[in-house]
């Protein structure tokens, strides 16, 4: 073994020296001077080259040579996402693809002088670019909603429709964040897209930002492509819901409120479950047609599930189909955080606004539950913790409610009640997205 290693050292030294060299040279790297030379040498690539020149040229293409601090930072962020997912089980189905996507999107490659090796997500003809169409054209989110519809049980909502209003109340986060973004200098469509982070719903955020902040001209205003930062902010905070929500919930409630017990929901008939998605589809999209791509698909999925006669389609929608789209969506959203595009001051503003929007949304849900309690008679009161589930972030915020509830009364299970505003929050933020589209497109 030791002998072998010595032999490898020959290779190793070549490799390490080369790399060292690169890393050092790179520090003095300047786009104008050095970059040009590389491009020149490239354009002559058909001419004679000695092996050493060939190696030098290859080195100019390596990631070591082209890496910027931003790439390294983003790769560390990607690693952190993966760490969070594995270690704390925070939304792993989102954070693992997004985290890996961030790493993949930030592997540095040579792109000076207009040379397109078809590697980066923003380069025409690259695989990532093709897969990214599903994001920029807003195709993936509705397909995700189809799968979500095929796995969602609306029973808790049907059995206690008044909890639906909590899902409406929490959408205040969307509209206040929208105002905040305007105040910070984003233009109308951009602000609308940023606001939707407060909806705590990843696909909705991606969908709306692909329509309102896609780098094109929307309603006469030039927008920047903010899909990446908005999506990352939405998913990050959704994963951090167990960290963000509890302090706010505790701040706005007293111990007596937190121990309110709620009547168990009544059983729901099969017929009601079939009627719900059909009626909800027609009503919500008549009110907010802009929500059609999202809510149309959500309720379509639910019809597949509840009709009882299309089990195989519902199965595929909630398994293979949503999985494939989740993989591609997570990967490309992650990869869209290529450092030179992503690491900007507006990304930081978006992250700050996003955090505030989650806080406001949570507060909105909890406080509205308290307002409702004023009108509700004894025995029908709502545990205001349940209001926090109105932000959507399904099902993590409902789980947070359950966990918090158990802390103050170990036998008071709030999960079932929290599911209703949780699911209503999804409908609410999709309706809000539709409204934003109507006003701003």
């Amino acid at each position, binding site marked *: 073994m030791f002998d072998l290693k010595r032999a490898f050292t020959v290779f190793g030294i070549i490799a390490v020296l080369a790399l060292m060299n690169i890393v050092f040279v790179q520090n003095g790297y300047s786009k104008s001077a050095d970059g040009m030379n590389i491009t020149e040498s490239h354009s002559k690539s058909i001419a004679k080259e000695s092996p050493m020149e060939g190696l030098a040229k290859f080195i100019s293409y390596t990631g070591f040579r082209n890496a910027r601090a931003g790439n390294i930072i983003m790769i560390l962020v990607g690693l952190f996402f993966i760490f969070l997912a594995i270690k704390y*089980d925070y939304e792993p189905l989102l954070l693992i693809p997004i985290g890996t996507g961030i790493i993949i999107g930030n592997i540095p490659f040579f792109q000076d002088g207009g040379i397109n090796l078809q590697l980066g997500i923003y380069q025409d003809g690259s695989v990532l670019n093709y897969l990214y169409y599903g994001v920029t054209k807003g195709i993936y989110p509705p397909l995700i909603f189809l799968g979500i519809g095929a796995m969602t049980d609306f029973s808790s*909502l*049907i*059995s206690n*429709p*008044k909890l*639906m*209003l909590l*899902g*409406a*109340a929490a*959408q*205040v986060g*969307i*509209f*206040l964040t*929208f*105002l905040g973004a*305007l*105040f910070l200098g984003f*233009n*109308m469509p951009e*602000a609308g897209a940023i606001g939707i982070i407060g909806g705590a719903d990843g696909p909705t955020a991606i969908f709306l930002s692909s329509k309102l902040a896609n780098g094109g001209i929307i309603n006469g205003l030039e927008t920047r492509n903010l899909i990446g930062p908005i999506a990352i902010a939405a998913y990050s905070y959704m994963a951090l819901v167990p960290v963000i929500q509890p302090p706010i919930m505790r701040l706005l409630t007293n111990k007596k409120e937190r121990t309110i017990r709620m*009547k*168990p*929901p*009544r*059983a729901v*008939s099969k*017929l*009601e479950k079939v*009627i*719900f998605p059909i*009626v*909800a589809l027609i*009503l*919500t999209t008549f*009110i*907010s047609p802009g929500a059609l791509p999202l809510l149309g698909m959500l309720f379509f999925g639910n019809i597949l599930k509840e009709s009882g006669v299309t089990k195989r389609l519902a199965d595929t929608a909630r398994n293979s189909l949503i999985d494939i789209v989740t993989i591609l969506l997570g990967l490309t959203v992650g990869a869209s955080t290529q450092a030179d595009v992503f690491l900007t001051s507006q990304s930081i503003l978006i992250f700050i606004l996003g955090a505030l929007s989650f806080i406001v949304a949570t507060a909105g849900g909890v406080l509205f539950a308290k307002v409702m309690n004023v009108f509700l008679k004894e025995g029908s009161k709502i545990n205001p913790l349940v209001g926090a589930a109105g932000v959507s972030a399904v099902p993590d915020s409902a789980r947070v409610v*359950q966990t918090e509830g158990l802390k103050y009364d170990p036998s008071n*299970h709030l*999960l*079932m009640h929290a599911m209703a505003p949780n699911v*209503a929050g999804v*409908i*609410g933020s999709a*309706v*809000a997205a539709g*409204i*934003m589209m109507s*006003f*701003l497109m």
Partner: protein
Amino acid sequence: MTLLFKIPDFLEQGITIAITGYVIVFAALVVLFYVFTAVSKILLARTKRHLAKEGRLDQIKEDEIQITGEVSAAIAMALYLHTLLHDEESGKITIKKISKTYTPWSSKIYGMSNFNR
């Protein structure tokens, strides 16, 4: 809508949009709330009518038609706890299963991994 400090035009319009928007979101879910309360009542009435026709209405109490759902709550809770358990368990099983598909993307193994799932 007069504030203490001067707000720019577009912000004023933004406030309009925000207020209108929030009202509409509420409206949408309020409408759903009303409709579903109504739908449930209609279905309940229909069930009662059916039972009345069959002359069995007096035998059954209101409570029994509209099951309180304590049972379903209990089931849900059991499922929830089961899920929590299951999760960790499934993690373990995953690893075991993975170690089983030892050789990689053989067409033959393709078939096998498919067979075993």
